[in-house]
């Protein structure tokens, strides 16, 4: 077994790559939830993003169009959710669940002719630096642009929510839509925007899987990652930085347990497979035990239907 410093660098690099879809989807969902909307359709939006991105890549042979298209497809499908919950005032939980089921079914249908086509290689940045610098090379370089974006996103989200006026508006809408509305804020419009933004990020998360991580289309290829992203948002108590930590722990333990198997640790494999879930929950519960802070971050009107009295 080789545990030298450069190996650890490679390991951290692959952990980062595996957490990208979780970071993207959870960061998107976090904004949606901070505006008071609970969208359980993350998995559905991700899988739609995955097939749209892949299909566009095959049709146009242009990765830029594929990436933008996957985000747009996430936006389009989240419009359905937004219209139902915000304009028709349907229940958030039921609508979100329906969106996931719909997304999985629709993607399977759309993807029929795209199964079994090899994907295109996605360009990676600074690949020469990756090889030449030990330890830091594989961590910092040789990734796709989407990965760098994903790792910047939680910090941008944090800044947006805490330091900008728009962020304040989103939080106000999530905490007390009635007061926000009385202040002259268009609550429905703000929530629509947050839903669409969440859709775009989930679409991108799906496209990361089908275009970059495992370049191919396969039915149901998100394999539950949307649900993990949803759980991360809650366990991270709606804090973007903790979402990042949670996603890294989850990705990290997933990869580590595979390595432990390959090394030949005499621990039951089933336990190792459950470990990512257990560890992520434990760590996030421990780092989020300050109840005052939780109250500060929790959108108090999460999942509640708001309508403006006329």
């Amino acid at each position, binding site marked *: 077994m080789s545990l030298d410093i450069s190996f650890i660098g490679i390991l951290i690099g692959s952990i980062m790559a595996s957490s990208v879809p979780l970071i993207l989807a959870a960061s998107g969902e976090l904004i949606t939830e901070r505006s008071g909307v609970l969208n359980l359709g993350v998995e559905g939006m991700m899988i739609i993003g995955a097939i749209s991105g892949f299909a566009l890549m095959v049709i146009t042979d242009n990765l830029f169009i594929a990436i933008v298209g996957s985000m747009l497809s996430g936006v389009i499908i989240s419009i359905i959710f937004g219209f139902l919950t915000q304009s028709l005032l349907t229940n958030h939980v039921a609508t979100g669940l329906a969106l996931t089921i719909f997304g999985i079914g629709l993607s399977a249908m759309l993807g029929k002719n795209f199964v079994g086509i*090899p994907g295109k290689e996605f360009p990676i940045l600074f690949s020469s630096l990756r090889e030449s610098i030990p330890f830091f090379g594989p961590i910092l370089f040789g990734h796709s642009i989407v990965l760098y974006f994903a790792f910047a996103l939680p910090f941008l989200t944090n800044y947006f929510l805490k330091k900008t006026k728009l962020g304040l508006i989103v939080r106000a809408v999530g905490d007390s839509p009635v007061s926000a509305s009385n202040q002259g804020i268009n609550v429905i419009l703000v929530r629509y925007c947050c839903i669409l933004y969440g859709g775009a990020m989930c679409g991108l998360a799906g496209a990361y899987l089908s275009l970059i991580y495992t370049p191919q289309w396969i039915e149901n290829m998100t394999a539950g990652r949307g649900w993990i992203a949803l759980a991360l948002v809650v366990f991270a108590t709606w804090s973007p930085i903790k979402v990042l930590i949670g996603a890294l722990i989850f990705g990290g333990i997933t990869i580590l347990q595979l390595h432990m198997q390959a090394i030949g640790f*005499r621990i039951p*494999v089933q336990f190792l*497979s459950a470990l990512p879930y257990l560890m992520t929950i434990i760590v996030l519960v421990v780092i989020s035990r300050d109840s005052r802070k939780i109250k500060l971050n929790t959108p108090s009107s999460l999942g509640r239907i708001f309508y403006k009295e006329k």
Partner: protein
Amino acid sequence: MYKNFFKYLISAIFLLGFSVNSNADFKVGFVYVGPTGDHGWTFQHHEGRNAVEAAGIKTTFVESVPEGADAERVIRQLAQSGHDLIFTTSFGYMDPTNKVAKDFPNVKFEHATGYKREHSNVSTYSARFYEGRTLLGHIAGKMTKTNTIGYIASFPIPEVIRGINAMTLAAQKVNPNIKTKIVWVFTWYDPGKEAEAAQALIDQGADVIMQHTDSTAPVQTAEKAGVWSFGQASDMQRFAPKSILTSIIDDWAPYYVERAIAARDGTWNQQDTWHGLKEGMVAMGPYNSAMGADLVNEVEQLQKDLASGKVHSFTGPIYDQKGNILVAEGKVADDGMLAGMSVYVKGVEGDIPK
């Protein structure tokens, strides 16, 4: 008005259904566990179906049928709608197939990779994939520089363990220093996880990767990392043209055509079929020229010898991990032992998950 419309629609559907039912034509049904375009397991069964169709026999298929309650419903529906012979092509369809077979004694059933034949109208069939694994082991043993072979395993069932053992025995024969590292992913089909497992094995020093899962993710990961790999179930060469050394290909077509014709002509009997390289149910994809002409010749000879029976994948002496003898010197493992294989042979690292 709409009410009437639906009434007509429903009666039309019934009429249509009836006309299908009363059709005296011979028909064959197929139940698949995955999509026909998975380019692995189901794709190959579908190729078999195409061959039956080409032989002038009508067929129907239902794809992506989950193993479980849904399977029984689908199989029953095929039996009810006038199919005379039904192929159920996944291990998990074993109990539903036997259950439905009991209620339809005039319909013939063929279940892939199972062992239960509870009624006289149920046959089982499978392929000796382990013969292909023996060839992979030989190639892997010669091609590895790090003496480490990475193996992505799905579920701890005899089928998978047999493959690991056959590969390891063959690799040891050409390279006594070989180590087999195994990662269990507990899925047949999760490209993300399969890719992560492949990457973990590569990072742990494996320079030859093989898998007993269905997606093309492991070979793509190997291609990216610049290590060797093998296609599984169908020819996956175009997914990793540089990395793939060869593929194990399941060829069900001759068997499907033979059984369909037998059922049509009334000569169908209950059977337990286990065919391999000899009958062509297991075939090998093109060998990568990077192997070098000598190794290709060697492997082609071994392939011939396995097919003719001159060489057996499990020839004694074979020991388990603790050093107890499993197959005595000069003997070969019998089919009963192969079918129930549940221990690793000497040289495989780690434990089988219980």
